[in-house]
């Protein structure tokens, strides 16, 4: 049984999705979905533990071993991200029932759970697989279900956002497909390990360069790197709140994983970061992304959009870490992947609670909220502090490691940019705080605290934000092992 855990991880939600159709009542659906997700979380925890104690797990699908068959390979990197994705999806799902009941019509709630499970299956598939084409297939599974999830939003703009994302996402995915196809053309294999071994022989081929370029652009579109982020703000803003929380916490993170995996384990470190001006481009885009997105975020009226832009900014930090190309830089990026998932998860769940009570989340709704929904607001503030990078929150840990990585590399000049980026975050978070705590509510609005089923998961994440900010040993340990694995594989 335990030998089959890697595939079980993916199969479980994949099979659960059609099973949902058999379950009639939403209550049952919700419990079932939660159960599946929790089971995945348990499995991924077990996987991480196994990987840390006894090394990589290799699983050949259908008994066909590597170059011929498809192979699933769990190492310290994807086990870490697996744990992140499954545990966050579980927490988010726990909060889903009431929020979805409020925001999605009864007749469509079934589709939410089905699409959610499919999306989860897709994301887990991307993480598990060791086969390049498989990545594309799972990417499309998760993307297609994401478009559906976004389109479930109440506002009609959700449809438009979903459509836009569909167009851009498909272009991105097709780019990835082209990239993988070109790689196959020159190497004749799709297995990542095999690719990594064969690619150095054909390093001079133009086909490789072209494939590399297509692939990178495609993935950067999926992870919403500035300026390829245009799909993200609207998608986050108009999707159902729970979906936003799920996507913000997991989807872009998985795309970052794909990027790291291909850069280090397929194309190879030397090829991708030394032969191209990619680090410089990334660094520049990262910095511009942080600044541009933060500045745009300041003027947002819709709070979901505000934090969506903040997500784009945070992706900028992650890319900056990767652009260093050092172990410390990659570790900082991985830490920020984890930490950013925690903070955005907490913030968007809190906003879900807010939308549950007030129906929308614009600056107007925030007036006087500090008194009316103290716990929800406190969660948003805690998440905001984490975004800024205040010590004792996770945001501080990843920023600290990022700054260290830059200092270690000797790029002192970049440090002020990171610091100023944090200051920009102070501004947009502060606008909210001022609105919520120091302004009176407009009308005689009666808003109580968010329901416990939403509040509790929110605070679990807030607590995680603080716990991993004070005791970051687990995350630092896991990321450092993952980084070692990456750099060990391609010295």
């Amino acid at each position, binding site marked *: 049984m335990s030998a089959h855990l890697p595939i079980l991880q993916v199969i479980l939600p994949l099979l659960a999705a059609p099973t949902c159709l058999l379950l009639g009542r939403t209550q049952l659906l919700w419990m079932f979905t939660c159960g599946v997700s929790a089971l995945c979380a348990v499995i991924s925890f077990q996987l991480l533990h196994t990987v840390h104690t006894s090394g990589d797990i290799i699983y050949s699908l259908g008994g066909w071993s590597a170059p011929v068959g498809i192979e699933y390979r769990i190492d310290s990197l994807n086990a870490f991200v697996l744990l992140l994705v499954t545990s966050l999806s579980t927490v988010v799902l726990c909060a889903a029932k009431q929020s979805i009941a409020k925001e999605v019509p009864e007749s469509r709630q079934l589709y939410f759970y089905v699409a959610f499970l499919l999306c989860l299956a897709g994301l887990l598939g991307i993480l598990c697989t060791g086969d390049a084409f498989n990545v594309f297939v799972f990417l499309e599974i998760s993307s297609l279900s994401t478009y559906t999830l976004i389109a479930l939003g109440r506002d009609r703009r959700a449809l438009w956002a979903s459509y836009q994302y569909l167009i851009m996402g498909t272009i991105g995915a097709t780019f990835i497909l082209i990239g993988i196809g070109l790689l196959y053309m020159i190497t004749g294999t799709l297995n990542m390990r095999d690719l990594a071994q064969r690619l150095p022989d054909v390093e001079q081929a133009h086909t490789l360069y072209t494939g590399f370029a297509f692939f990178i652009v495609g993935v950067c579109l999926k992870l919403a790197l500035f300026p390829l982020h245009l799909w993200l703000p609207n998608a986050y803003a108009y999707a159902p709140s729970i979906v936003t929380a799920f996507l913000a916490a997991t989807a872009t993170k998985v795309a970052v994983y794909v990027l790291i995996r291909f850069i280090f384990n397929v194309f190879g470190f030397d090829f991708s970061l030394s032969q191209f001006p990619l680090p410089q481009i990334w660094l520049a885009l990262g910095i511009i992304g942080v600044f541009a997105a933060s500045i745009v975020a300041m003027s947002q009226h819709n709070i979901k959009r505000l934090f969506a832009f903040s997500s784009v900014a945070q992706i900028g930090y992650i890319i900056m870490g990767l652009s260093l190309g050092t172990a410390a830089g990659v570790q900082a990026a991985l830490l920020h992947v984890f930490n950013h998932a925690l903070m955005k998860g907490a913030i968007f769940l809190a906003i879900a609670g807010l939308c549950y009570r007030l129906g929308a989340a614009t600056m107007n709704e925030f007036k006087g909220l500090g008194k009316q929904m103290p716990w929800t607001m406190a969660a948003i503030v805690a998440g905001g502090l984490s975004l800024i990078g*205040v*010590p*004792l929150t996770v945001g*501080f*840990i990843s920023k*600290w*490691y990022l*700054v*260290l990585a830059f*200092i270690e590399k000797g790029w002192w000049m970049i*440090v*002020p940019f990171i*610091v*100023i980026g*944090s*200051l920009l975050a*102070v501004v947009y978070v*502060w606008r909210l705080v*001022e609105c919520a*705590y*120091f302004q009176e509510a407009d009308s005689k609005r009666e808003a109580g605290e968010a329901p416990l089923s939403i509040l509790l998961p929110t605070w679990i994440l807030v607590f995680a934000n603080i716990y991993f*900010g*004070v*005791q*970051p040993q687990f995350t*630092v340990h896991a990321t450092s092992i993952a980084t070692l694995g990456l750099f060990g594989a391609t010295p």
Partner: protein
Amino acid sequence: MSANILLQIAILFPLLASALILITGKNPGLRDKITLVSATFLFIVVIFIYRAFDASLQVEEGTAVKSIAVNWAEIVPGLHLGFKLEALGMLFALIASALWLVTSIYGIGYMRGNNEKNQTRFFMLFPIAISAALGIAFASNLLTLFIFYEVMTLSTFPLVTHKGSEHAMKSGRIYLGVLIGSSIGLFLPAIIWVWAVTGTTDFVAGGILQDKLSPLHLSILAALFVLGVGKAAVMPIHRWLPAAMVAPTPVSALLHAVAVVKAGVFSVLKIVVYVFGIDTLSDASYLHFLMYLVGFTIVMASIIALGHDNLKKRLAYSTISQLSYVVLGALILSPISVVGSALHIAAHAFGKITLFFAAGSIYTASKKTEISQLDGIGHRMPWTMAAFTIGALSMIGLPPAVGFISKWYLLMGAYDEQVYFAMGVIVVSTLLNAAYFVPIIYRAFFKTEADGSKPHGEANKAIVVALSITACMTILLFCFPNIPFALAQSIAVQ
């Protein structure tokens, strides 16, 4: 009980008090009692800590070196969240907790006398600010200090904007913008720099930066710290202080005469002594530019104070100038001047809080805020104006007020190191101090009141009692400066 536990109680207890105050908010009588009781309790705790600390000092001279320290968490290797007792912090903690008690009495009187709204929020945030002040006092490293520094900034913002008017919010934004901006933009990078160079941020006697940086870099780092600790209000990072004067007077008194600004200069002093080390910093060849800036602040702020008719504004600029004395004393880099700086923290705290109390008392009794309205007020409010006079004497640096002692040490230190610039600045500013305080006293006692003004007496009892206590303390400290002096000396000895 061991001192370690007391130390943690001192930091955590105010938070508990804050929660209690929030819960009992609907019952003002009970709430105010809790405020007073917890303030008294905290003061007693701090006194016990002092006794334990004093005992450990005695032991230190003998055989075993036992420091009172607590480590809460190690966030990143070399980055702790921890506390450690040392003389300077002890001094600051004593001042802050003693004055919290007095201010609590005063605050209750003031808030009731003026029927302010949101009183619960006000009394709830006060202990948080004090907790932050104690956290800063006891911090064992730069990171811990930085965390509590920011907590203090954030927790005082609602106090500053208490009135909630458009003007108050605007001033609040300046307050927050300048303080957060300078701390994240300058202070934090400086901490990162120190960490990158030494691998630690701990406060160690003698400093941690020996032979680590070139003189030029040392000077730049010092500038980052002095300007980054925006609460020290060295020009041009001083704009927040006058802006914060929209706050109710007890806030101005405690926070902007004691906790906030003292946290700033205290941090600077602590960093100079325990991070740079006096000997190391004297290598910094360009430090005199920084000293010119500080000197300029002292003189310039005094001149600006002369031009302000609003009493609180004048006091605010006086604060800016007095704060820079402390920074100047730290930058003179002689052990004696450091003693002077430490003493001046205490002296200025008691003196300035008396002045602010008096200003609030005048406002509560007569609603007067401008100096030009104060003709003859000394006859109506003899206690208040007598206290004001004592406070003013301390600011100018005349006996029998404690300001005299600290200025004396500052001058001696400057003379020892032959920093004539500093001596000149101190002398000139003393004259300016006299120039802006004496006319007020003259008006109050020797001019006759304008006709047709409303008769009024002293403000309510709580206020008068509070300001009498601080005024007496100003004189008592002059007569018996043993405790602060001993503490200040032990810094210099290290």
